[in-house]
């Protein structure tokens, strides 16, 4: 049988509090016995912590009988896994063709200007992270954005400003 995490604490040289580690152990205990567990484990960590912290890598690797390099390789391969804390909210701008045909390029520049960050950046006050995304399946009402898990359609630059202001107060959305 394959090695399954059994609940004993693996060696961990990180400085993180054991409480943080315990959360990772709890996730592993829940997910590790599934076939092909690495993606579900990483998703669960990111859902709980907002990102996959460095200290999680050796814990996950040991529990799943993988090398740290393998775990790191998977995290870095997938666009939606992140290794740094996100802002309070994440604004995803669709960059794909259907949205392009309805002005996504202009919307993208407007968003960057409004928030004062580039893609993969987080505003200085920590309110927003800005991420590109390639298709939300909302192509019939292009251009689209997603804030956390809510999709908005036919988003003009003005509409984006309204959405940001609704979510985060009037200082947002003033390019």
């Amino acid at each position: 049988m394959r090695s399954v995490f059994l609940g004993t604490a693996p060696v961990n040289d990180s400085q993180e509090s054991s409480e943080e580690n315990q959360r990772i152990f709890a996730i592993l205990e829940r997910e590790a016995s599934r076939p092909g567990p690495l993606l579900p484990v990483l998703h669960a960590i990111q859902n709980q912590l907002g990102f996959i912290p460095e200290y999680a890598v050796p814990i996950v690797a040991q529990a799943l009988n993988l090398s740290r390099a393998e775990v790191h390789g998977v995290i870095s391969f997938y666009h939606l896994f992140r290794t740094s804390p996100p802002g309070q909210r994440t604004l995803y701008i669709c960059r794909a063709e259907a949205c392009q045909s309805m002005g996504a390029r202009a919307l993208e520049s407007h968003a960057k200007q409004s928030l004062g960050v580039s893609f993969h950046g987080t505003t200085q006050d920590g309110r927003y992270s800005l991420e590109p995304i390639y298709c939300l399946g909302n192509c019939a009402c292009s251009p689209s954005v997603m804030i956390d898990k809510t999709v908005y359609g036919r988003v003009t630059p003005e509409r984006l400003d309204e959405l940001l202001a609704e979510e985060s107060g009037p200082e947002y959305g003033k390019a």
Partner: protein
Amino acid sequence: MARHSTVRVFVPGDTTARSMGADVVAEEITRLAAKPKGSVEVIRNGSRGLYWLEPLVEVEREGERFAYGPIEPDDVPGLFAADFLNSNDHPKALGSTESIPYLAAQSRLTFCRVGITEPLSLEDYEKYGGYKGLGKAVGMAGDEVISTVTESGLRGRGGAAFPTGIKWKTVLETSAEQKYITCNADEGDSGTFADRMIMESDPFVLIEGMTIAGLAVGATQGYIYLRAEYPLAIEIMTKAIAIAYSAGYLGKNVADSSKTFHLEVREAAGAYICGEETSMLESLEGKRGQIRFRPPLPAVKGLFGAPTVVNNVITLASVPIILAKGADYYKNYGSGRSRGTLTVQLSGNIERAGLVEIAFGQPLGQFLEEFGGDTATGRPIRAVQAGGPLGAYLHPSQFKTPLDYEAFAEIGAMIGHGGLVVFDDSTDMGEQARFAMEFCAIESCGKCTPCRIGSVRGVEVIDRIRNGENEHMNLELLRDLCDTMIEGSLCALGGMAPLPVISVLDHFSEDMGVRDPKRT
């Protein structure tokens, strides 16, 4: 009951309807209807796919549904003022939903319930013909089920168009203790949303299709590899699976057949390449989504080394109706070797964007006119990209091509997953060609050089051409590079990303900075 019976009002709850404010509309209707208490029941149905009309509100009167759209939250008081529960007298009244020409002209087979039913109501699903296909399949031998699928002419709707029955037969005939059914729900092509619609609006049809596949080939475990970009689809599919388990449609004794089929959703993580079947399998195993060499085919050695069916959502969702109504019923739609229906997803710069399920064979231009109307901006159409980011940009001179796999292949294009994205004449086609290479560079899995390096060089060469640097030499280089990628890449990403580029070179060369097309 002593009172008037409750009027049912439908407000779609799918991603696109919600993205246009359907949740607020539903709340407003519930709030304003509360006065004569209990007289209105608001149902969150799936979307009919008439997306330019979303949020599309429907009222049921004497068993017939009447549509209003697009309804914004501010329209709701007006609907009540016009007594929309009882009369059709409102400027946004569209009459009987089924008679709206866009819908009436379609042949909804795979999408027969989409937009009509409440997605998570198993009762609705069964009432509208659901689980009839499985009912037949449990009484048939595996190879009988597979012959029915083969005879129907069903081909993979994910893009590759491989005959589904032949794939299943290979899995059936490969002996192994464990086999798998995997559903590729990593619908990453821009301009496609049919998979999302099925999963959000009629999730049980996918569960039924996968269960039939499982029984047919002898697989006891299924996985739906579902895009992380579709949070609502993940939520609805997960709930539907739980409902199917508790109703005995999944588990150790599927529909009292004493056969086992387990199913689970696996969330992807935003890599386009995982829509390629071998990458998807790697990802399901918990690895980087890098493609595998073929052979062995996944049907022989797939997930965890076991024989595995890999099918797209629409393919699997088409299986129940084929079993329920027979191979001939399905095969009688379509043209040439493209049998059954095609789910076209019309989007981009077009007046009437939405989902159109029709028989194969209608010429593209006629289709665009009949269903799409003008562009959204009112300007002339410059190009249509068919089949996602790896599909060619079609010039209006090619619009007579019929919508079928072979006819599209003949002009160097593809139907793919059925997405059509319309662009108006303000589009810089050179920019679109550049994006095709840029996207390939972002999404390449890195395994083979033509794709990994070629795409990066492609962006650079296009930039040089557009800057007027050594235009003719660089154009020749670009064609050469496209050729290398097409011939030398391991999978369709590197192998097809050049297609949109070549289509721009062939038909829109003026946008690549070429002043005299004859000199290229």
